[in-house]
């Protein structure tokens, strides 16, 4: 019962922050709402017996990804951009309506088809379920191939990010003169 109440409260916060992110004019606020959302989701992970994932969620998502977002928003001053007009006037409500409709349909579909019974108790192993040791065990045996594959992903992303942002001094000057011309 306690869990259910906690869930409902957190779910409200979670949805609220998501909507907050969606509607914030200011990108910094949007990012903060998202951080809140991620932290709440981390709490859900704890409730679902995934402490390791919960911690990674906070470290990676809240601690690294969103900080980077924030960093870039501030660096480029993106929070200043007001969306002038944005979508055409009729498109906005249509998009919202479609989104809402989709949501209702999905929720109804799941609600009517899935069993409302709580998942079975994991018993004695509940304490160890989702522990780093267990995760590691599975990760380095069954999932070793994708794990190795992802190293290429990270390498490529690293190389890519460097290539995209590294400017040679000379080129920069040319660019600036070009921009002045325009």
């Amino acid at each position, binding site marked *: 019962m306690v869990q259910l109440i906690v869930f409902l409260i957190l779910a409200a916060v979670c949805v609220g922050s998501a909507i907050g992110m969606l509607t914030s004019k200011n990108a910094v606020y949007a990012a903060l709402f998202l951080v809140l959302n991620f932290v709440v989701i981390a709490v859900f992970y704890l409730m679902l017996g995934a402490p390791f994932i919960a911690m990674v969620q906070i470290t990676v998502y809240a601690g690294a990804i969103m900080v980077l977002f924030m960093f870039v928003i501030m660096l480029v001053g993106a929070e200043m951009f007001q969306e002038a007009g944005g979508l055409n006037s009729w498109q906005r409500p249509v998009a919202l309506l479609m989104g809402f409709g989709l949501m209702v349909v*999905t929720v109804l*579909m*799941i609600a*009517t*088809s*899935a069993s409302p019974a709580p998942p079975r108790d994991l018993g004695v192993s509940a304490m160890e379920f989702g522990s780093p040791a267990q995760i590691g065990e599975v990760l*380095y*045996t*069954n*999932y*070793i*191939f*994708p794990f*190795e*594959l*992802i190293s*290429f*992903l990270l*390498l*490529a*992303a690293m*190389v*890519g*990010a460097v*290539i*995209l942002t590294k*400017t040679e001094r000379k*080129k920069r000057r*040319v*660019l600036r003169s070009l921009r002045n011309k325009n």
Partner: protein
Amino acid sequence: MNLADLTQMVLRPIGFLGLWASILLIVDLWIPKDRKTITGWLTLLGLASTAIVVAYTTGEDPVAMGGMVKADGFAYMLYYIFLLVAALTVLLSMSYIEKNNIERGEFYSLILFATIGMMGMAMANDMIVVFVALEVLSIPLYVLAGYLRGKAESEESAMKYFLLGAFASAFLVYGIALVFGATGTTNLEAISAAIEGGAANRAYLYGGIGLILVGLGFKVATVPFHMWTPDVYEGAPSVVTAFFSVGAKAGGFAALLRVLYVAFEPVTADWAPVIAILSALTMIFGNISAITQTSIKRMLAYSSIAHAGYILMAGVAGGQGALTDFAASAAAFYLVGYAFTNMGTWGIVMAVEKEANTNNEIASFAGLGKKRPMLAMAMVVLMLSLTGLPPTIGFVGKFYIFTAAIDAGYMWLALVGVVTSLISAYYYLRVIIVMYMQDGDVEADLPWTLSLAVGLTTIATFVFGVIPQSLLNIGNDLISGIF
């Protein structure tokens, strides 16, 4: 199972290429700035030697890593396609990146990384590998699309590609999550078994299949998830566009076919009509939109959408026992044909392109027939192949794939296929008209690597259009009884 299993035979091709790509990154540091062509040749060497490794790996027990991967004949067939596409891309890019002052060794490494991703997709036997490999494929492509630094349209193209790619990934992941919720596993074969077992929650399952289709649909650019294609294709450097119009597409289809044929085989009757409709819409929309384009890059972009529709046609034939092999080899063969044809076409586009993304109007091809008869002739062959006219590989491919569709009982889809081919004739012919029947002062810049690539692809397009049996045999031998 442990780390040592990573040395299993079937993982050697992908491992070998991965090692090569990583070493190349380091080796490149010692290659002087003005001689990056060396890196290009090393890349080609890597691709060629990987092909040899693949050839020596075929026939091994395909399932490895506890069912994570299944490097069967289908995968090997696609490996060859990917390696071919990557090799052609490298060949095309040597002069291109030099001409446009974006010559950096990492360019080649990124191509290799993307190729690794494609190979991963081809051998995926678990949703997790599908997802990770898809990202390994996509991320280098995002970077490559924005490689023309300082050119706004290239950066925007990369941005659009990236945002839509990430959007698509999100759909894919959610779809996988729902399928996982329905079946309790991410292994393709286990999913199939679970569905057959009947315990699967249908709402989750169908929702999941739908979202996976959306996600992969974005990647391979089927209607209605295609809107990013023209902009991205137009803005990206031509050589990169060539790469992802074939390579990424092939990778996406590899995964799509595997997921459909293996995981969702028990519910074929439910998804096949959806695929059929998607395929029809894609063919119709792609071809009709291509008609009005004036830029050759945009025209080819829409044409590539259309071709996605044709390949998708093979999708409907699958999941039906013996037919599945037939459909899979049809798709593979079509991809080979499309690879040759499209790479060659982009090579010619690059030859006519003065500087990146200039001179891309179809009108700028005027007079090519007089000035560069051989090049124009090559373009004619390639255009005919794209249209699907004999005696080119494009025709054999279409014949194969339409036959598969008819075999599966989708006569109407085949009808849409041939009618849209007719429509496509209109805009492909326009290129020929402009080349031969209008005068202009076109200049084509053909460094020898570029002409080599164009020549090879054109000859392959023609020769395999006349005597395709050797290619067909490879496909038939590799892809039999695997799904």
